[in-house]
């Protein structure tokens, strides 16, 4: 097998092997398949922490402080920083490392930057695979910094045990943003930059919003079962100053509290089920899209269908059904 050498080095904790494997899963889904297949049984030990929030709220600075504390506790940490790819040029500027400049020992801390390569949802296609590689590499905790969120970058909640959302005093734009999707997936709200005026006001605003959600809740058994991880947990709120590490004791306590909740309530099995289902659906979407694109580009029959569709004798839904038939996927 092509990657077996690197994989055995990965399992022994060689950072360069981890880095090479990450490059392969990023660039090539077939490589990802082979690699994940080999390392999967060695995964499942890392606690996955998702950090999200609007651009500039201090995610990278916050993570840098977290790393320092976890390293002091003797933990091995992996960090994945996702930044956006330019839709025009396909290039990306990955700048999160600037805030994580302290020289952490490479034995304890592994930081990797990723461009999202056009994927919506705040992560990159390969982020799940990279989490697995860092998990198998021996990280106790894997921290994922998502693309600075707008309203719909919520994919992190499918992968992370605990989702932390950062807000900052003032503005209020970030509250607007989290009113939609982000708010519903947050386990811990952190008002960062508590040294700036307005931190307590921001906390009050979040509280108000959560109250509103609780008081006007539409109860549905289906939703509360499927999303037990969110439904059974009341989001916590705290404030920190990431630049000097102020109030991180409380924050760490809240992360611990959420972890205990997952384990003691049994909700963790629900989380694992959702995570694996979602991941599989993503892979299927990817593979099927590829198959269909191949077909669309190569098959003469489909060219005829498209001509018919242009002439209005075939509509796109019917054409899709015909393609499903050609793929042998008809029910």
């Amino acid at each position, binding site marked *: 097998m092509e990657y077996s050498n690197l994989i055995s080095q990965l399992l022994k904790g060689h*950072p360069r092997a981890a*880095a090479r494997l990450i490059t392969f899963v990023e660039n090539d889904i077939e490589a990802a398949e082979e690699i994940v297949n080999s390392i999967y049984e060695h995964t499942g030990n890392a606690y996955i922490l998702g950090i999200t929030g609007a651009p500039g709220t201090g995610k990278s600075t916050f993570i840098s402080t977290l790393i320092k504390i976890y390293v002091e506790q003797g933990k091995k940490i992996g960090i994945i920083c996702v930044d956006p790819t330019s839709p025009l*040029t396909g290039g990306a*500027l990955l700048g999160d*490392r600037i805030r994580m*400049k302290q020289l952490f020992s490479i034995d304890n801390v*592994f930081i990797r930057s990723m461009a999202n390569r056009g994927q919506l949802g705040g992560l990159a296609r390969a982020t799940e695979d990279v989490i697995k590689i860092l998990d198998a590499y021996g990280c106790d905790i894997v921290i994922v910094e998502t693309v600075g969120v707008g309203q719909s970058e919520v994919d992190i909640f499918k992968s992370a045990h605990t989702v932390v959302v950062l807000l900052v005093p003032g503005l209020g734009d970030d509250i607007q943003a989290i009113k939609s999707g982000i708010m519903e997936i947050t386990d811990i709200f952190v008002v960062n930059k508590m040294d700036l005026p307005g931190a307590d006001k921001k906390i009050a605003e979040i509280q108000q919003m959560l109250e509103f959600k609780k008081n006007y809740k539409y109860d549905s058994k289906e939703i509360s079962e499927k999303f037990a991880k969110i439904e059974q947990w009341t989001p916590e709120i705290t404030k920190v100053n990431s630049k000097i590490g102020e109030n991180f004791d409380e924050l760490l306590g809240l992360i611990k509290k959420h972890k205990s909740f997952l384990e003691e309530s049994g909700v963790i099995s629900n989380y694992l089920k959702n995570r694996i289902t979602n991941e599989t659906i993503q892979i299927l979407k990817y593979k099927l*899209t590829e198959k269909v694109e191949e077909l669309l580009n190569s098959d003469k029959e489909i060219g005829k269908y498209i001509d018919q569709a242009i002439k209005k004798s075939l509509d796109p839904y019917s054409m899709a059904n015909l393609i499903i038939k050609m793929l042998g996927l008809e029910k």
Partner: protein
Amino acid sequence: MSKERKIKVLCCKPGLDGHDRGVKVLARALRDAGMEVIYTGIHQTPDDIVNTVIQEDPDAVMLSMLSGSHNAICPIIMDKLKEHGIDDVLVAVGGIIPDEDKTFLESHGLKGFYGPGTDLKTIVDFVKNNLKR
């Protein structure tokens, strides 16, 4: 779609050199040329840089040096990379590099040496044409 190899470049400022305008211009130009560019900020020690290279696995490293300390710092970086068995990464240096230093730097495996006023396309093409993998 399943295979999308991107050129990944690390741009950094070794040592106590605070001239960061050039490296930022460079980073933006390489991004606009479709590359994934990591910028790590100023005041990077050789160990910082080598650790970043190990973790990020870039195809190229651009060392931007205007302080005159290139002869002292670049060989250390090259030696440390070699220690880690990293020999398939293009390492380039540019900024203010006097002509008489080029042979010495070349003997340590460095390339580039572009200075003030270099056309950005020249640098983009240089990266594309000198990758080692």
